[in-house]
């Protein structure tokens, strides 16, 4: 079955997941993002590519940060942005997902940026919306967060240049993380030879090996000689679901402290998709320290999202 993200010419018309995207497509997005990064330095920080187009932010799961970066990106492309707080609107009144989509399509939406609590929801939307409408997945359940994966790759490329000789460690709640899955797919597609998933057995599960990572349950072993460390956010639900006793114990074993950081390569970069839980995944001195590239990630994120939106909006279904 053809990947629903690509049209018959192999061009990107939706961004639903990094999985299944060929390496040249990923590089095209990263290169384009580089162009958009320079737009920030101009006096006029807008380009007219999406002028006259309507971008609807459909966030079934709340997230002010992600929604804001998409809004900024769309506005920098001169698009009209409409934010739909679905959680509080018609779906709460019982309107089905597809009815919501049909109603919005009738309002001449050109692009949906969708965040949903269930894996696979954006695929359903892409399948059922009008042919000219493009869908960007802003995070679906545990499955994918492709723009985050792309901006993480942009960050790595910016600081490390070459993917082919890197060791990347992803630490924390990988099994529940859509960011981790997108990062893993991107890293494997871009040819990173050593990817490690680090965490306790309940969060860094054995099944993850089938995605092409090495599962480690010891933090020291996991980040030894790493070029890149990606720390993931720990969610409170893990404690109530009997997967972890407490955030304190997690920090003791898997928190990133300066002592642990010393085990990695001297020029290691530390990344985090945000928001960070200081003292749970990462110690403040590391988060604010010289190895941290957490804030540049945010800037890169706007450029990457501008690149994604302008690429897909220019391709026909």
């Amino acid at each position: 079955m053809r990947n629903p993200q690509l049209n018959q010419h192999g061009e990107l018309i939706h961004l639903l997941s990094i999985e299944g995207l060929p390496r040249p497509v990923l590089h095209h997005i990263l290169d384009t993002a580089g162009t958009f990064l320079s737009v920030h330095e101009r006096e006029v920080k807008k380009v007219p590519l999406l002028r006259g187009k309507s971008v609807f932010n459909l966030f079934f799961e709340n997230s002010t940060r992600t929604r804001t970066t998409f809004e900024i990106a769309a506005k920098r492309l001169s698009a009209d942005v409409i934010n739909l707080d679905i959680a509080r609107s018609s779906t709460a009144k019982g309107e089905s997902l597809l009815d919501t989509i049909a109603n919005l399509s009738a309002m001449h939406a050109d692009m949906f940026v969708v965040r949903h609590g269930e894996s696979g929801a954006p695929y359903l939307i892409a399948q059922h919306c009008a042919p000219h409408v493009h869908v960007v997945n802003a995070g679906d359940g545990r499955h994918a967060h492709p723009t985050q994966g792309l901006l993480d790759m942009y960050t790595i490329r910016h600081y490390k240049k070459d993917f082919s000789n890197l060791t990347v460690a992803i630490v924390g709640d990988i099994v529940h993380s859509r960011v981790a899955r997108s990062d893993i797919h991107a890293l494997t597609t871009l040819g990173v030879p050593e990817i490690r998933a680090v965490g306790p057995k309940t969060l860094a599960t054995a099944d993850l090996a089938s995605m092409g990572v090495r599962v480690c349950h010891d933090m020291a072993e996991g980040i030894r000689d790493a070029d890149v460390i990606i720390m993931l956010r720990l969610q409170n639900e893990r404690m109530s679901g009997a997967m972890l006793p407490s955030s304190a114990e997690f920090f003791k074993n898997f928190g990133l402290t300066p002592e642990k950081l010393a085990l990695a390569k001297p020029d290691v970069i530390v990344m985090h998709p945000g928001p960070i839980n200081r003292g749970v995944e990462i110690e403040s001195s590391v988060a604010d320290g010289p190895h941290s590239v957490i804030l540049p990630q945010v800037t890169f994120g706007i450029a990457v999202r501008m690149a994604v939106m302008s690429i897909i909006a220019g391709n026909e279904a």
Partner: protein
Amino acid sequence: MKILIQNGRVVDPASGRDETADIAIAGDRIVTIGRVPEGFNPDRRVDAKGWVVMPGLVDLAARLREPGHEHEGMLESELAAAAAGGVTSLVCPPDTEPALDEPGLVEMLKFRARQLSRCRLFPLGALTQGLRGEVLTEMGQLTEAGCVGFSQGELAIGDTQVLQRAMLYAATYGYPVWLRPQDPWLGKGVAASGAVATRMGLSGVPVSAETVALHTIIELMRGTGARVHLCRLSSAAGVQLVRQAKAEGLPLSCDVSINNLHLTDVDIGYFDSAMRLVPPLRQDRDRQALRQGLADGTIDALVSDHLPLSSDEKTLPFAEAVPGATGLELLLSLSIKWAQDQGLSLTQALAPITARPVAVIGEALGSLRASAGRLVEGGVADLCCFDPEVHWQATPEALRSQGKHTPFAPQSTGFALPAQVQLTLVAGTVAYERRC
């Protein structure tokens, strides 16, 4: 009415018959097979040349969604779907709305089904009141009303003491208990644990959800002497446990659904909610074991696991979609396809949907026991005639059921389904006939 079915290839797994023969029917009985009685003057002749004539199919798991969906005319449409699928007897689980825990509800259901004058209905009664897993139902009265066994539907009883006592009580009277072997907590996920579920970010159902439940049920069988039918095996480990328990001589039977027999988790594709099923589709190794188990008799019967769902219930993100699929009209084709894939004979293809399911229902069939699921002179005239050369596709137009969602639809897996039902008789009356 007198009917003569001529020139058909008569296949009856119960007797081993496989030969071209005529069948003479009078009233609700088969008069003769292989010869025509002196002076038999049929009101209707059916030329079954090129067709296979078999006993009407017996489906051990088909949901008609009544009581609960009367306003949608479910009973009518789904019984018509059964007839279109060649199914002449079906067992329906008690998980209706309300659950079948009162004799009045069972009687009403059987009455309404008889009015529609088609398929024979054998309801399972609820094992506990409201299927809540706390208080036992009046199994005696429910049996008198027509229940052939007792079940919890899809729900598992977490309280092992209640389960043990329910089995012990049922065992007193020899009532069979039909149970889904799935642990209620380990079974909470939406797709089978494994590489596919991990990659897709879907919560997993490990094999242990089935094996832990099987171990519990088998152990309780030893202590209570209950007769148990296991509904819907899904794993190789599960098949092996059943094999061992049967070798021990425990009164255990089990079935597998058409879905798990043919599909694996890879078929989920891009979150196709047609694949949202319970039990979940497991890996190829499990499929192989299920196919082998059905062939060697470890698994007694093949069922449709029919559940007619609307688009509102299915066209949702994977985890939110209601699990289940339509199946009554695919049971015959998929049994034949399985046998073809395994290199088995037509008799072997048809046994798990005729004689073997009848053995599972057992004594509860009463006088029908001698002739249901088989073709025997003097027995009930429940027959299915099909054309083995025709292939068809499970498009919405091809299905009579209101449930159009099936994993075998062209846009999902696109199987070409072998064998198309041409004529179905129940008690000597035409229940379904294909118009050309």
